[in-house]
């Protein structure tokens, strides 16, 4: 690749903001892969619109990260000029789209968390994060409603849609633990009221799952073993492929504008 990668500073608030930006960017990019391929026109529009919202949230977070870092980097530098091990997104969002059921279940598991997370973040002691949270709450509410309705429709649909939804839930559930894990570097931020405490978010997430999965006739996996590593930059092979596709143009043609 023609363009060199950037190095970023080691700062706790910066790292925490970057991690949330990475969650939104990677999931937004995944959803954008459906553009032109969704099972119906309405869903093509819906997934593209949700992708736009998420990439918009990512841009706001990257912009804020850039002001914290104060190293002259831009949102594009963070998106296009970091290598896989420098990304701090949770593993759930980088998982491949799979079939439509996989995409919807992944979206539901994330949205149920994101909606509760951004609601809690509106009272962050950090004014910039509280402002970004206030923008993200209504967006994530629509994302959650969309994904929840589809989870019910698939789970309570045909034998095949039910099987596919249950397969997706079984496959993706082990990736939900990372949403509630607290990296050592974030404990101070939580104590300081800058980051929401995941323990306060979990009840809303669990309540949503219990209600929606029951309505969908889907069984919540009982396994408690959880995947982890994304927040430390240890990713599945899928992220490398995703980034190769996302980054090839700016890496090959430095300074390209499109």
């Amino acid at each position: 690749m023609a363009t060199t990668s950037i190095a970023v500073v080691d700062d706790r608030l910066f790292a925490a903001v970057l991690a949330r930006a990475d969650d939104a960017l990677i999931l937004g990019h995944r959803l954008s892969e459906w553009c032109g391929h969704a099972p119906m026109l309405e869903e093509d529009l819906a997934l593209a619109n949700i992708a736009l919202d998420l990439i918009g949230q990512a841009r706001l977070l990257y912009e804020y990260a850039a002001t914290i870092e104060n190293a002259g980097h831009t949102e594009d530098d963070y998106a296009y000029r970091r290598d896989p091990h420098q990304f701090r997104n949770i593993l759930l969002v980088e998982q491949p789209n799979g079939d439509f059921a996989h995409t919807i279940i992944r979206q539901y598991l994330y949205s149920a968390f994101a909606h509760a997370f951004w609601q809690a973040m509106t009272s962050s002691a950090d004014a910039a994060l509280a402002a970004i949270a206030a923008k993200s709450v209504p967006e994530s509410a629509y994302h959650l409603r969309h994904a929840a309705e589809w989870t019910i429709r698939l789970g309570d649909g045909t034998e095949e849609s039910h099987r596919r939804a249950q397969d997706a839930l079984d496959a993706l559930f082990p990736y939900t633990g990372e949403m509630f894990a607290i990296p050592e570097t974030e404990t101070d931020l939580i104590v300081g009221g800058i980051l929401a405490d995941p323990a306060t978010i979990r009840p809303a997430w669990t309540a949503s799952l219990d209600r929606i999965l029951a309505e969908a006739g889907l069984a919540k996996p009982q396994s408690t073993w959880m995947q982890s590593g994304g927040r430390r930059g240890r990713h599945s092979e899928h992220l490398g492929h995703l980034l190769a596709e996302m980054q090839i143009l700016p890496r090959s043609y430095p300074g390209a504008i499109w």
Partner: protein
Amino acid sequence: MSTPQPTLRDRAWSAAAAVPDPELPMLTIAELGILRGVELVDRFVEVTITPTYSGCPAMAAIALDIERALHEAGIENTRIRLVLAPAWTTDWLTDEARAKLARNGIAPPGARGSNCLFDNTPVPCPRCESNATERIAEFGATACKSIWRCTACREPFDHFKCH
């Protein structure tokens, strides 16, 4: 009696306020609540705008349109400032904006008040005003709209979602 000349700030406000939204051209950015302020800061005419949605792809176009409108009004040294707080909501749409949306076949958003995001308040048909309507899709041609149909007059229509 002579009327006082409009100030530079007033002229700039008028020019910026008249800029149409690129995706809802029947509305101006002032009616939509995107235009937050026009001030003279240092030697600049500073126009403050706020995005409707985080990922609204129209913000860059809106900023360019404002620059052009100010330039055409003979105003130089302009700059655009983007603010996030307080977050834009559909409650900022003026009554005139809501009436214009309905006249253009787009059902305006309900009042945000309680929890409009999840309640099931009926969305009246902008053509025949029937409440016998149903949502076809959560997201329409733009992030701010959903797609509905009226079971009374059989017409599909866009709904500007409460936000």
